[in-house]
């Protein structure tokens, strides 16, 4: 039995789950947290991004057995943090999503960026967001929404 700390709650994962299973699939198939998305499975797209102890992590690459007692935050819980809420509001304000499939991962990466860099420059945004693919091409609005959210935090 694994005890995970997810979005501030303890969640139990049964012994029937192989500890080598990536966190992504445990969240999605066993804990009914389907907000984190599968896009590539090989750390290329960022759709599966969650925070582990505040750092953005590709949950398709982290085995559930290696999570331990670290605090996991997913898209379902990020709105409870000040920067997460700001980012989500900024996303809606300028209508960032197209198909929306990448956006959970984008929001997790963007929130992590604001947590570490409250007023990010264009190159900070480039560096923090380069791991997240948006097939619909919403980058121009993601950049703007991050700047709008940052402006609200100062």
């Amino acid at each position, binding site marked *: 039995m694994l005890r995970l700390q997810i979005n501030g709650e303890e969640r139990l994962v049964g012994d029937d789950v192989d500890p080598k299973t990536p966190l992504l*699939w445990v969240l999605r*198939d066993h804990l009914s947290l389907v907000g984190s*998305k*599968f896009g590539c499975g090989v750390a290329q797209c960022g759709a599966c991004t969650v925070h582990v102890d505040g750092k953005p992590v590709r949950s398709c690459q982290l085995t559930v057995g290696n999570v331990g007692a670290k605090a996991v935050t997913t*898209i379902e819980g990020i709105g409870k943090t000040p920067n997460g809420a700001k980012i989500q509001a900024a996303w*809606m304000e300028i209508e960032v999503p*197209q*198909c*929306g499939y990448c956006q959970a991962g984008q929001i997790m990466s963007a929130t992590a960026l604001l947590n570490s860099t409250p007023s990010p420059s264009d190159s900070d945004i480039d560096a923090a967001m*380069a791991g997240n693919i948006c097939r619909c091409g919403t980058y121009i609005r993601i950049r703007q929404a991050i700047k709008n959210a940052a402006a609200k935090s100062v």
Partner: protein
Amino acid sequence: MPAKINTRFAQSDAYISQLMRDVRDVPAQGAFPMGRRTFFKLAGAGAAGLVLGFHLPGEAFAATAQAGKDQAMNAFIRIAPDNSITIYSKAPEIGQGIKTSFGLIIAEELDADWNHVVMEQAEINPKVYGNQGAGGSTSIPRAWDQLRQAGAGAKAMLVAAAAKQWKVDPSQITARDSMLSHPSGKSATYGSLAIAAANMPVPDPKSLKLKARSEYRLLGRRHRGVDDPKVVTGQPLFGIDVQLPDMVYASYTKCPAAGGKVKSFNDAEIRALPGVLDCFVVEGTGVPAEVMPGVAIVAKDTWTAFQAKNRLKVDWDLSEASKDSTTEFSARAKKLAASFPGKPVVDIGNVDNAFANAAKTVEAYYEYPFAAHAPLEPQNTTAHWHDGVIEVWSPSQQPNRGLANLAKVTGVKEDKVVIHQTRVGGGFGRRLVNDYMCEAAAIALKVKTPVKLQWTREDDFNHDFYRPAGYHQFKGAVDKNGKLDAWQEHFITFTADGKKEASGANLTENLKYSTIAPNLRRGTTMMPLVIPTGAWRAPGDNAQVFANQSFMHELSLTAGRDHVQFLLDAVNTRVPELAPKDPKTVNFSPARASAVIKLCAEKAGWGKTLPQGSGLGLAWCYSHAGHVAQAVELSVDANKRITIHKVTVVIDVGPIIDMAGSEAQAQGASTDALSTAMGLQINIENGRIKQQNYNDYPTLRMPFAPKVIEAHFIQSDNPPTGMGEPAFPAFAPALGNAIFSATGERVRSLPLRNLGYSV
């Protein structure tokens, strides 16, 4: 050389070609008209309030025979006594914003309070809703009249109910924000009138007065996507998010070379893996658009199904499998290009004469590669076979066709097929084909509980319906006045059946109208292809416009003319044979084309002096009923690294429904077009796809995306047309033309990274 025609592949290709024609087949000058009997109310007096829906002509649906909850299922609008207004969106949401736009169109005519409208996805029932697909940028033009009439009809019934209660003339009643009011001071909410309105006669759609554009309060403004709150908080929306009690998970493995069949596999080894519940061969129909043969593995979760898939060893029968090779195709096309085919497909004026008397001529060869769609949500469908019914939840672009597809592959009648439409994590034309939906159903027949079929990203790259490569040999002539006088184009393309072009591999209709020369000749040579092709965002146009509009720039330079003037002259040349025969079905207009070109030149600063190493390029297209011009301003450094300074997009698709969404499509399509032109390419060798995941297929990322994309809309009273596709095709030639003006190097093949360019 692949020569033998696979008949089931040819059949699949014919199905997709027909689908693509049907998807595009919409009158350009207005939606399908509705007759009197097509409009009906679903509920009489009762707790449901006013529920309005539609019959299709010839369908004998008795509204009264439908009971209770079902009534809402056939609806467009439901107004409940508690003043809640629910609007049902009949088409798939794939990122084009249709769920928002459909709601806005109805709410506008209904004068509903948009902030309190709830949008829901309609059930899949083409008998009630008509076409429920998303593709070809036709959702808006198809539904425009239908939805406006639904909104206006419901409002007319509410007004009639109020007029009766208040004993006043209906013409004195005004509607706003879900309220009716009368100069006497009387007012009432829609909800309070809903039951009374349901007892009013249904108006004849033709009697309804629809709003003029100047009266719009919602349309044309910026709106938030109706599902945004769920998207940004990670709520379940997509096909991949479907969860059902007792659900199991499946992977499916097909032959990496299209057309291979399963001889045997390591059944005992797979079956023994912990968490694997079952594994079996699915014979399928052998039709790529349905179910190709493969091995299904059913497991307790997705990861287990994927892990077992990795351990799978299949002995494939490759006798009918593809041996296609893109290197071979390129080499062959180049050779074929040299001799123009004996029988041209178009031959107007006297091309030979024009070349003989030309002031100047120019020749060039263009090519572009195969491309995959790679929508970010990998293909999936959840299927449940129960009580003689096959029930699926699927992120499809063609759920209405899914009914017949599933009936065919499962052997049940269409009325035993139930399809639930989920949100779709990117379409781009890939999900016009329901192969993954059919596979899930075929697997479900052998599983007692609901089963979610999940493709891996590698499955998605290996089993796409690709954008075909294409090769164009051009020759053009300009006359002594510097005008385009002759255009000859030899298009080398592909065939699946040996007779006609494969799906998406034909010269597009759009280009026939928009490349206008007094002497014009086109011919086609086809190479046999096994790998299936299909519709890729702005099919045909997405690459052919690159070749055509780049060559157009070569011609204007040859003529020594200003490129914009040259384009305007060409588009306004009158060649009766090239003009659309029926303006009702083709809305191409030289005036609208000229307007977008002129405004684009103006907004992009055409003619301004640019620093050394910088360039401005412009191109235009008529695509999917939209007229679009695009300009790219960039600079190129000594290492061929491109910096995009500004993209300008000018679009005429008639009036805009949702400005935020339309601008998003213009930005997204331009970004997608940059991504595709810079880096995307599918290589095939021995029938196998080389690119297996995004690391081989460099989809554009944030640091390389343009920072400035200005979209301008020329709005008019022409009926609105779709925004999903038209802003894609003209980008790549504008980019290539800009690179030429910056560097003097002509881009005649894509992707640009093969030529040493980067962004």
